[in-house]
């Protein structure tokens, strides 16, 4: 990571004492354990506000989150990360940053490569990736599962889909850290990350124009946008930026949280080993209870959400994770019930911005957990190590030290 002294660090945030009127999703207390905070906020109001981030609301109930997600008239997706500053919008990433009517055609182009059938074709490669990773550390009887396993699965899967070398994954991880974590408070890191990533993809774009293949970059270059015209290079680059940013640390987080839960819950682990057919149902519950992704909207016109007035010019922290812990929607919302039967969780969003990669994420989670449990059925958190969680928009374990084998 660059620690350049010229970096334009934004002021440090003062610690939060009044969560209801001054919440801050980058506060270390939130990063470590957000669940009790959400409970406090939800008990206070369906929509709370902070003066931080130049003014930001947060819906705290499933209902309020849903109302905002469905309302593209008053809430724009042009900014999808809540940050300290609101610079000019330069690097778009359609369709996640698109509003109607531009949104639909931009999304239609991306949907066919991510259907469940398309994911079935990718599954054998992901299974092999998981086993290659496990081979590297299984003899050690311990590992940091975030650094050695969960982190690499989505990176390699996306690289495989894009037809680029899987070893370039380390570059992707660096850019994502700069854009999604450091970039919340440091504009230079964000711009450097975006610039390097764009340069990398421009080179691949030019190469695919000369030698088209079956990979996703070539498919996007062949795709027709609205009006039957090919997509512009800028549009293709924006979508590639999106796939990388949205497709990697999100799933890394989701697999990591699932393993974290299983490491500290032997009963659930044993049940999934005895009944592997239940893994997909358990994955849905992990997605609900440990949803990694919080999105954002910008209020364009004054309106009312769940009876609370919201004013233009503010951002909205659209916390699908908090919605998924709302006891009005989910009985025993704070319990992880791996055979939960009714589970309309919103981990992949609600409405037109449903995550385009949801089928990919689900497949990766299922395969990653299946392969881990087959080879490392007995494991636990390392009491001498520390689990750390990512800060900001995507939540998941970034250090996950576990013991197994002779250490189990």
């Amino acid at each position, binding site marked *: 990571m660059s620690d350049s002294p010229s970096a334009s660090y934004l002021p440090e945030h003062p610690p939060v004492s009044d969560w209801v009127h001054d919440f801050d999703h980058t506060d270390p207390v939130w990063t470590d354990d957000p669940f009790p905070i959400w409970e406090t906020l939800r008990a206070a109001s369906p929509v709370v506000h902070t003066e931080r981030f130049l003014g930001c609301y947060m819906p705290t109930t499933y209902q309020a989150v849903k109302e905002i997600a469905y309302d593209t008239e008053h809430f724009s997706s042009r900014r999808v990360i809540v940050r300290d500053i609101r610079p000019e919008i330069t690097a778009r990433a359609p369709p996640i940053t698109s509003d109607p009517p531009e949104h639909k055609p931009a999304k239609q182009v991306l949907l066919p490569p*991510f*259907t469940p*059938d398309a994911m079935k074709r990718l599954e054998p490669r992901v299974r092999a990736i998981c086993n290659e990773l496990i081979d590297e550390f299984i003899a050690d009887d311990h590992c940091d599962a975030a650094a050695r396993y969960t982190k690499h699965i989505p990176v390699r899967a996306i690289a495989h889909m894009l037809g680029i070398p899987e070893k370039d994954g380390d570059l992707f991880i660096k850019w994502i850290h700069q854009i999604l974590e450091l970039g919340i408070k440091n504009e230079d890191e964000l711009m450097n990350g975006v610039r390097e990533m764009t340069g990398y993809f421009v080179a691949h774009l030019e190469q695919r124009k000369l030698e088209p293949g079956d990979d996703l970059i070539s498919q996007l270059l062949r795709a027709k946008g609205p009006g039957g015209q090919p997509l512009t290079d800028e549009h293709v680059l924006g979508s590639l930026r999106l796939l990388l940013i949205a497709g990697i640390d999100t799933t890394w987080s989701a697999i990591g949280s699932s393993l974290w839960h299983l490491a500290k819950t032997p009963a659930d682990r044993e049940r999934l080993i005895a009944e592997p057919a239940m893994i*997909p149902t358990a994955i849905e519950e992990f997605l609900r209870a440990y949803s990694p992704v919080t999105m954002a909207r910008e209020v364009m016109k004054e309106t009312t959400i769940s009876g609370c007035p919201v004013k233009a010019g503010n951002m909205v922290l659209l916390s699908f994770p908090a919605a998924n812990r709302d006891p009005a929607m989910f009985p025993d919302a704070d319990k992880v019930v791996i055979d939960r039967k*009714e*589970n309309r969780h*919103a981990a992949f969003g609600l409405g037109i911005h449903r995550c385009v990669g*949801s089928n990919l994420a689900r497949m990766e989670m299922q395969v990653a957990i299946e392969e881990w449990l087959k080879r490392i059925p007995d494991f636990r958190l390392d009491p001498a190590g520390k689990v750390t969680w990512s800060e900001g928009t995507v939540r998941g374990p970034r250090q996950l030290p576990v013991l197994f084998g002779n250490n189990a």
Partner: protein
Amino acid sequence: MSKLRIRVDQDKCQGHARCKSLAPELFELDEYGNAHEVGDGTVPAGLEDKAWLAQTNCPEIAIEVTEE
């Protein structure tokens, strides 16, 4: 047991594909991954539980189940 019929509201479906995963006999996906019911939506005997399971797991509440 009375006969069930299912229908996916195309305006509401966003392609989460939960129904296809839970009840592959009853739902199909188009090239964009959006769901619709198989045939005329009549639920064959023995698959009633799966129809309800799909209905209660659709995040967009896009699936209607009617009893005939």
